[in-house]
């Protein structure tokens, strides 16, 4: 018997209409996302920053790739090397250097370096930041670790605690004079008391501001000099908060000081703590350590950190001049890179951020940090090139990095302020050419180096990776959750930190 499909009396047009109605759901055309910015990580370290910033937090690896084009892993073949030169692998990706734009410059630098000497044959391996941590771990586990890693900051190194070689004996053996560096800077390059690199570049933080938004609001620009007043008032956090509220505007044109202000329809924000974790925010109120110095295994959140987090939380949920997580990841704020959107008037971040927005197109400048309780703190990042313990050519690797850390081209490639003050004028001159027609007052950056957060917000902690993980989560919690009892949440964080610290070997 021939089989036939049963005919049901059902209007064909209705069936087709249902099918058509379903299609948009499946072909869901959300606003095209130029970059996948995960909800969880936008605040840790940037979407864009991990690739370009010199310093990143370990959490950065979780951030989805920020740049529109994800650069592939790049390995050079050691072209131009002298016959018999020892091969050294230079691994880039934990911090700066993974950007598609930077890779050709790095390759060119390596080629020139290989041609300039006959002892070492440098092989460049660049891995996209989010994958770079796992890739390096796999290489370490397989016993095929690279020789040189960098640029890499404290937090990046923390993910590979114990894997770095001690530089001191290598420096001593090669006669390298470490005394020309500021001892504080050398301390900054130590992990758990071990010098793991030669200071390379500094990345002070300050306020980036959008001049166009200030002009539009007819407000004067924030101070460029320490001690300068703003509209007759001391340049402190209260003044900054008030200014930020005036610069926060809703869809109806009301600013955040207006009783008619609608926080659910904000179109412009006054301030943003760009690309940092909870420790970075806390540093606004001064450096500190989250444990009892007498007993590092007992967590104790400093009072200034509590105050900083409460201020930050209120800036989002009470005064509305800082964006919450939904706003941060919205189209309005360039999906996780708020200052670059042109809709944020002021953002606090580091020198490396020049990597991550259109420095020529946006009308911007930089201002000094406001004081808090009479004291200015500008959190500081510092990067170096480090040598892995697994390297079989540590002495030669040291020779190479001793050249890298004073190389003017590498300063420019990575946007880092030279650790040696004499090299800075030339660095800023080239940077000024890069940001033209903007005329950026780089004296602010030099000034802010004098106000570092001590202890540094990336400094060592017991069980550092897990502790940093908690700080990252804490910032996300603040960014995502209205109605928190901050004292209770901070106490909870302290308990969690305590447990993590006590787990430390």
């Amino acid at each position: 018997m021939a089989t036939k499909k049963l005919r049901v009396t059902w209007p064909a047009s209705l069936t087709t209409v249902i099918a058509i109605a379903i299609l948009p759901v499946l072909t869901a055309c959300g606003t095209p996302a130029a970059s996948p910015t995960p909800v969880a990580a936008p605040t840790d370290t940037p979407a864009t920053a991990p690739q370009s910033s010199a310093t990143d937090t370990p959490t950065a690896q979780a951030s989805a790739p920020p740049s529109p084009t994800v650069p592939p892993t790049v390995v050079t073949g050691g072209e131009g090397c002298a016959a018999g030169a020892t091969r050294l692998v230079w691994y880039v990706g934990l911090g700066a250097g993974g950007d598609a734009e930077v890779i050709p410059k790095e390759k060119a630098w390596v080629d020139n370096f290989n041609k300039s000497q006959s002892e070492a044959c440098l092989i460049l391996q660049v891995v996209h930041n989010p994958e770079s941590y796992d890739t390096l771990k796999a290489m370490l586990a397989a016993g095929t670790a690279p020789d040189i890693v960098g640029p890499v900051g404290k937090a990046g190194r923390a993910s590979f605690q114990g894997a770095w070689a001690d530089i001191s004996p290598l420096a001593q053996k090669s006669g390298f004079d470490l005394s020309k560096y500021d001892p504080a800077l050398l301390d900054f390059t130590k992990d758990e008391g071990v010098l793991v690199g030669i200071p390379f570049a500094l990345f002070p933080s300050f306020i980036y501001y959008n001049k166009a938004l200030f002009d539009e609001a007819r407000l004067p620009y924030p101070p460029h000099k320490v001690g300068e007043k703003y509209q007759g008032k001391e340049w402190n956090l209260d003044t900054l908060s008030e200014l930020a509220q005036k610069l926060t505007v809703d869809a109806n044109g009301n600013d955040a000081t207006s009783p008619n202000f609608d926080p659910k329809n904000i179109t412009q924000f006054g301030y943003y703590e760009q690309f940092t974790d909870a420790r970075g925010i806390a540093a606004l109120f001064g450096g500190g350590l989250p444990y009892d110095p007498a007993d590092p295994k007992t967590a104790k959140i400093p009072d200034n950190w509590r105050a900083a987090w409460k201020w930050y939380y209120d800036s989002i949920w009470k005064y509305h001049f800082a964006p919450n997580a939904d706003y941060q990841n919205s189209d309005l704020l360039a999906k996780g890179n708020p200052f670059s959107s042109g809709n944020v008037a002021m953002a606090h971040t580091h020198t490396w951020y020049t990597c991550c927005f259109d420095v020529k197109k946006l009308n911007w400048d930089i201002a000094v940090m406001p004081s808090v309780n009479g004291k200015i703190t500008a959190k500081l990042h510092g990067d170096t090139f480090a040598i892995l313990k697994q390297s079989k050519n540590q002495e030669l690797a040291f020779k190479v990095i001793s050249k890298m850390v004073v190389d003017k081209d590498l300063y420019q490639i990575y946007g880092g302020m030279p650790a040696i003050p004499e090299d800075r004028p030339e660095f800023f001159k080239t940077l000024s050419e890069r940001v033209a027609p903007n005329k950026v007052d780089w004296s602010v950056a030099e000034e802010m180096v004098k106000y570092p957060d001590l202890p540094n917000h990336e400094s060592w902690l017991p069980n550092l990776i897990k502790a940093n993980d908690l700080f990252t989560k804490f910032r996300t919690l603040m960014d995502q959750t209205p109605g928190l009892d901050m004292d209770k949440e901070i106490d909870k964080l302290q308990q969690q930190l305590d447990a993590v610290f006590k787990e430390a070997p």
Partner: protein
Amino acid sequence: MSDMSDTQTAPAGLTGAGPAGRIITLKQRSARWGLLFLTPWFIGFVAFQLLPIVSTIFLSFTDYNATTEFKPGNFNMVGLDNYARLFNDPQLLQSLSVTLKYVVIAVPIGLVVPLMFAVLVNSRHLLAPNIFRTLFYLPTVIPIVAAVMVFQGMLNAQSGWINLGLKAVGIEGPRWLSDPDWAIPALSLLGLWGVGNAMLIFLGALQGVPTELYEAATIDGANGVQRFFRITVPLISPVIFYNITLGVIGAFQYFVVAMLIGGRNGDPQGATLFYNLHFYRTAFVFNEMGYGSVLALLLFVIVMILTAIMFFFGQRVVYYAGSEG
């Protein structure tokens, strides 16, 4: 049958001499060729499956930290310590709870929706059915990462199209990706993107249902709903069961989307901390390969038990035409 008898019965020309003049039977020759063709798979299986499984079991008894080379001296044997840790890991329960929540919400949705689509595109009253089948399937060929990027934009509470649409009709949309209560529903919604595969499988099953059964039922006075639940569903129950099994296993292996949406911390507030994400964090973020291996093995055990349970009950409710009669 012995090899000798094979040799004796093998037609001329199908036996040959081995290196030492030994007679090779047809069966032996076939076996050799078979093994030769199997070799690539076998090498792949040993290198990429068996060895990692054995390594995982071995690692689960060590305290190996992933920042050092994997060689003797860089790890200690810790006995069952890593297994004991399962009982003191609060994130284990949290991640299992998130995963189960997802199974409960997403698996039924991932079953019902493609079935509905399949019924729709199987309808004789749909104009241009092939076009709709293609269009419904099309999202499946888009890489999941690209799909997630699109959905991130769509689900943004401020600028996403879903909330803008809701706002247009006076409804304030939820904070899909930042409210812990909405994270799993958001991921389930996102899962609809890829129902094309399941839809095709259902479509194949629907087209295999003999139409004379429908005709007989119609003559007996059955309406559409009765025909669907009393004829279609029982007859396609093996495919439903197949999709449930794959759905549950898939849910326990859920990782990429969760990682891209909630980051490696499982945000908001751990609402997307799926089991696999917990495993990833342990092994590849905190470098605790020993405990990470235990988590991997536990996942295997959980999935195996669930599959066994499903098959146990599946035998009772699934209709297998071939087993009758």
